[in-house]
């Protein structure tokens, strides 16, 4: 079994005065694809933002590759090899597609080349001189994923990459995520779309009220479907 790449223990986090995470514990092994499931407001996005270090106040422990990152500013965390694809995608309107793609600096060797990324997302190559925010939602999502593949980061944090996209594009993103896993990326995926998550992930952590309350292996999903429906309120 592969070693642990990310270990989160007793993580608490606040947005200003509001206390969002109340002690989150989970871990991801190298090369795994793990999802965080849960209803709106369970703390999934906050967990990703906490790992990335872009939240005001955090306590507890987040160890990446054996190094404690809880006190680090986010640019240091990124340079350890964690990359973040935010829910709102964060495409820059003052940059064209190519500039958006080349923006995140390479932090480690082993990332994809620009050519490989354009091969993975041919639409982006066609539109490389367009303003980033002129792309369709699906293309923007591909750009947001594509640009973090160049950096050499080994852990990708993907926040609802399928949100608001047409089924055919969701399918395409699913294929890409599977390809990334087979290339050796470790992925932490936040998803509302459980049916999508079930097709790609090794394991699912279920969050509720700022805590991880259950773990379900992908192989047990069929048996646990009733339990999951209660958790997710579907």
């Amino acid at each position, binding site marked *: 079994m592969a070693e642990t790449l990310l270990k989160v223990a007793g993580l608490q986090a606040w947005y200003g005065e509001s206390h969002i995470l109340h002690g989150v514990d989970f871990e991801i092994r190298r090369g795994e694809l793990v999802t965080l499931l849960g209803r709106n407001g369970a703390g999934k996005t906050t967990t990703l933002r906490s790992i990335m270090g*872009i939240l005001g106040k955090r306590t507890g422990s987040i160890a990446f590759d054996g190094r404690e990152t809880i006190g680090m500013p*986010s*640019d240091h965390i990124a340079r350890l090899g964690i990359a*973040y694809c935010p829910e709102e995608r964060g495409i820059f309107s*003052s940059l064209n597609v190519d500039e958006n793609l080349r923006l995140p*600096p390479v932090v480690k060797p082993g990332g994809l080349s620009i050519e490989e990324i354009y091969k993975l997302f041919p639409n982006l190559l066609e539109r490389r001189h367009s303003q980033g925010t002129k792309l369709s939602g699906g293309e923007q999502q591909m750009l947001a994923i594509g640009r973090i593949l160049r*950096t050499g980061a080994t852990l990708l944090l993907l926040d609802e990459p399928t949100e608001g996209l047409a089924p055919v594009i969701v399918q395409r993103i699913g294929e890409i995520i599977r390809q990334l896993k087979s290339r050796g990326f470790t992925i932490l995926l936040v998803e509302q779309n459980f049916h999508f998550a079930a097709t790609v992930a090794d394991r699912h952590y279920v969050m509720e009220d700022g805590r991880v309350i259950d773990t379900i292996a992908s192989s047990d999903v069929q048996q646990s479907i009733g339990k999951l429906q209660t958790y997710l309120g579907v």
Partner: protein
Amino acid sequence: MFELLGIAPQALFGQLLLGLINGAFYAMLSLGLAVIFGMLNVINFTHGAQYMMGAFAAWLLLGLLDVPFWASLVIAPIIVGLFGIVLEKLMLKRIYHLDHLYGFLLTFGLALVIEGLFQWKWGSSGAPYPNPIPGGYNLGFMFLPTYRGFVVVAALVICLATWYGIERTKLGAYLRAATENPTLVRAFGINVPRLITLTYGLGVALAALAGVLAAPIQQVSALMGVNLVLVVFAVVVIGGMGSIMGSIVTGFGLGLVEGLTKVFYPPASNTVIFVVMALVLLIKPAGLFGQTK
């Protein structure tokens, strides 16, 4: 045609040249303000004082160390830019999370302190700076002093180089991206606080560079930036807060408008820019090149 208008061509072209020179300074200064505002969200009212410091730095370098004008053109902006970096590190960075008003008050107060100190030390009458390229050309319809022609060309080069640096280079892409979403840019591994410090240093150095260029034309005096900075703010408002090309085009354009007003209706020449500002604000509140957020 000139007879019809009742204006001597010498007067018209003379004022146009003067307008172009003023415009060159408006453009360089508003460019620095636009860069700073875009990145720091601070309206840098110290800009006029920093322009004055550039001129003083050149004057002191010449008087004390015999440093020639051409060397000062590089050294003075570096000195004043470093001073800007210290200001940013010590004071400005503490107020980014507050309302614009605090940045305005802080930089305005700093300008008063700096200008007061220079006035106390060197008085306010001003000192001359020798013209590094005396002489000129008779163009037939007017006489062009060589140095003034040089200033216009130098300002254009500086403005276009700055525009290129911001719009077409990797560092510029970081700047533009960090202006939009500093949190995310930082989460990509870029040291955004350092980028902000450097941006302020660069904006301040631009003001100082304009000050060095102005030294041979104007008297070097503690208050030389006071009136200029007001006009430059009007230029920034007309061009659109934070727009780079807007600052350049508006700067030169308004210099010319001012020059033409001096020819056709001299009493309005001091107010014409503010009239244009009022009209632009009525019709396009975000400025000619600005984008409403």
